[in-house]
């Protein structure tokens, strides 16, 4: 396999690069592996072709999390991460890819999700949505979107299958129900969004997903499409071409529901916060810091809505980490990294991140992305911070607050 560089350099407009180093300088992964995207671009400009030896020698191409800091920072509008995706595509085509990446792609192809769990189980998360003991007033019904609905809720793979993330999914639909939202899901017909598939370089499979999912969405006829994950949100919004359908991340929709008064945390008089917080009823008496997911913040500039939700929850005191918003540190869960460890297994950005969160004095590290939830929660445990820091999705906090006011139903076990 010998790859002619000129065509790719032209197609990705790499000639604009002035080798200033802002991309590699800002790359969180470059600090722990030999990945150097600036140097990679230079190779593309000066070497006539890249051979199999080159690709074999540059396994760090699989280290990129596609956080797109490089794309955000480039002063010349070059998109360095696109080159990594392109080069991964070359490796996918030649079949020289890490085994776990291959398995994830195969899972998507066969079962519509990267874990390869059976398609029929995709709606299993709805079990227990109304609570294990059946208590509570408002019964939550997750209807099939095909029956017609205003908002199509795209659950996503991790939120549908991963037991930890399912908690968030159920919290989200309870909030939708509490707000009286007319929503529906695609049930077992839902397939992977393909955001990570594309970033792993499998363009053909991605295009197939775009076509099939796009057709399904249009068939439902909903005017709005909301996702659990910023990753699904990103590809639907920026890569699917879903004209006429407004694509939202759940933080946008929930912030809107709160602002319009459809979702209210009607606070009863607050008792003084109990030790450890949260247990005394009334509000969620916690100090919370928020971690901006790359696909929501850096890539789609949604910084304020997640914070607006947190600020609306009675009792929550929001504190910021030094690296927040545009400077949020990637958790290393994107770009296929959920299924590939990369070349440096010892150092994890998530470890650094949870220490940064702990330094703020926050008891809760709030996230708005399934991957961030999993990577950061794992890091908290490994780093021995679990006695002082708990990782929770924003929706879990919302659910907690709604339950306390009798509007929702706290049925899932909140960890910690």
């Amino acid at each position, binding site marked *: 396999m010998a790859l002619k560089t000129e065509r790719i350099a032209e197609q990705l407009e790499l000639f604009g690069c002035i080798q200033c*180093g802002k991309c590699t*300088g800002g790359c969180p992964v470059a600090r722990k592996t030999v990945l*150097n995207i600036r140097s990679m671009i230079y190779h593309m400009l000066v070497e006539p072709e890249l051979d199999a030896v080159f690709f074999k020698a540059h396994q760090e191409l699989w280290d990129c999390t596609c956080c797109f800091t490089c794309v955000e920072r480039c002063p010349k509008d070059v998109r360095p991460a696109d080159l990594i995706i392109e080069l991964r595509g070359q490796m996918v085509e030649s079949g020289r890819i890490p085994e776990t990446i291959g398995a994830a792609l195969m899972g998507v192809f066969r079962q519509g999700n990267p874990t390869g769990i059976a398609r029929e189980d995709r709606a299993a998360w709805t079990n227990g949505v109304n609570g294990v003991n059946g208590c509570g007033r408002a019964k939550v019904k997750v209807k099939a979107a095909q029956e017609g609905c205003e908002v199509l809720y795209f659950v996503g793979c991790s939120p549908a299958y991963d037991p930890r993330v399912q908690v968030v999914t159920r919290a989200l639909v309870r909030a939708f129900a509490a707000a009286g939202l007319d929503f529906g899901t695609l049930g077992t017909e839902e397939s992977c969004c393909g955001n990570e598939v594309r970033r792993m370089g499998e363009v053909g499979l991605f295009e197939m997903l775009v076509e099939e999912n796009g057709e399904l969405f249009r068939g439902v006829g909903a005017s709005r499409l909301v996702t659990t994950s910023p990753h699904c949100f990103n590809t639907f919004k920026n890569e699917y071409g879903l004209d006429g359908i407004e694509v939202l991340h759940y933080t946008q929709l929930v912030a809107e529901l709160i602002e319009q008064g459809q979702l209210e945390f009607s606070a009863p008089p607050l008792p003084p916060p109990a030790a450890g917080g949260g247990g005394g009823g009334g509000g969620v008496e916690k100090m919370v810091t928020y971690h901006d997911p790359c696909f929501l913040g850096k890539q789609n500039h949604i910084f304020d809505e997640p914070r607006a939700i947190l600020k609306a929850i009675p009792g929550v005191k929001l504190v910021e980490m030094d690296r927040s918003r*545009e400077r949020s540190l990637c958790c290393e869960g994107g770009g296929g990294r959920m299924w590939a460890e990369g070349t440096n297994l010892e150092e994890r950005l998530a470890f650094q991140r949870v220490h940064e969160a702990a330094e703020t004095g926050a008891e809760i590290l709030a996230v708005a992305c399934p991957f961030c939830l999993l990577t950061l929660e794992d890091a908290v445990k490994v780093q021995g911070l679990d006695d002082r820091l708990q990782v929770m999705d924003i929706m879990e906090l919302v659910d907690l607050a709604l339950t306390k006011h009798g509007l929702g139903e706290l049925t899932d076990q909140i960890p910690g």
Partner: protein
Amino acid sequence: MEPQPRIGVYICHCGTNIAANVDVEQVAEFAAILPGVVVARDYLYMCSDPGQALIQQDIEEQGLNRVVVASCSPRMHEPTFRAAAQQTGLNPYLVEMANIREQCSWVHTDREGATEKAKLLVASVVAKAALLEPLEEREVEVTPGAVVIGGGVAGIIAALDVASAGFPVYLVEKSDHLGGRVADLNRTFPTLESVAELLGPLVERVQAHPNVTIFLKTQVTGVEGYVGNFEVAVDSRRVNEERVNEEGGMSSSTYSSSTSSTLAVGSIIVATGYDVFDPHRKPELGYGQYPNVITSLEMERRLAAGDLTGFPKPVRSVVFIQCVGSRDVQLGNPYCSRVCCMYTAKQSRLVRELLPEADVTVFFMDVRAFGKGAEEFYDEVRAKGVLYRRGSISEIIRRGDRVVLIGEDTLLGRPIDFEADLVVLAVGMEPRSDVSDLSTLLKLPRSSDGFFLELHPKLRPVDTAVDGVFLAGCCQGPKDITDTVAQAKAAASSALIPLLRGTVPVESATAVVDEEWCAGCGMCVEVCPYGAPALDPFWGVSRINAVLCKGCGACATTCPSKAIRLQHFTPEQIMAQVDALVGG
């Protein structure tokens, strides 16, 4: 009765520019038998002196009353051939050009096809030439004097030059002082002169000049007229300094009264300067968040006071970051601000003197030391121990009382974390945020970077699309004091041309209204970009100010009753051209 047209046609070889791709002899032979043509010739360079003499000789000896030159674009040599005709007594508007270079020989490789196309182009121009009408060349009187908008270094220099030539100058400044942004600076590069010593005498000279009237806290609110006769409306706001804010006990300024006046002048010089880039727009650099991240302008004030204390830690490591807000396509500032490399060199050297124990590092993408003495100064700064490292810092984060610069040293080829006590962001220049106000008032076009557009980047750097309006200083694009002064003096010299001549020529190929046909609908008033037509309130018809009219023809094509006729481009002339082209 009109005399029969006697047309001479002249086909230019333009060396080989045309002749290589067009058979010029064949075109001349073809032209010779066109209706009305008396003589047709080809020649190596028609624009040369012998070439022009050839035309003049034919006019005189063969009694030509029309001349067609087939050569380059009329933008290039139409004035040349018009002048040549005029010398023989032929009205210059009886000369017409066919562009067989830019629109033919340069863009085609098929010689046969290009020759056929050249014939058609010549035939169409000959057809038009037969219908040409002589037009009267006119001049208008000039109001002596100039308005200079902006009281920075550019405005002061321009005002002094025009005033010293003996004309009244009105220097209009928005703020309450003269000197502009330069007044915020400490020392100049590369000579390290004191700005106060440079600027002080300059301001005093302009204040003392008997021909200069200075308006402070004054804005231009309207511009009427045309080259030679502008009326510039200005509004002065007097600031009442006495009022005291009751709650805070702080003195505050409020606008209490305003006076308006109208200044009649022949020329206008725009010297409105620039805005400093606001680094809040690069949130990853932590400006406004960390007290030890400052802008280069803040550093100027610090250096002027000789004080680098008051930061979270005693300053042991100072870092300068270049190109903040410049050369950045994403921000919409693709240009180089041209001063940051050198002022950073200057500041870093001054810091070395002030804090000999501190490390001084400059992170750069490219160093541009292009002025006189600039490269030598850059050499000197490095010799003094300022360390230059290549790499553009990607973000800044906090570590205790210090900050950490996160980037890549591209020459080492590896990411670095660089701790510093003080970071200086070398912020660039931007068009003023209110630039569109003046752009609208003066109808001044702007280039894609947002700064005012000069008429030609090389040959007419201070002229604008509006005759009589000239540019000086950073309103046209980022530049240092040296270049600003040079441009200000150029603008003053250009602005003096109409003032010294006393009259200005005006375009003769203008639009005229046939009042019998005009319905007074006013569509011409709406479409005219120059404000030339106006509806006569009494007669209800359109009248076109021939001095404002540039002959663009927008009104003539818009007029629903065809009452407007653009001279030199009449419907008959255009139709004759079209017929010749399509064989009608």
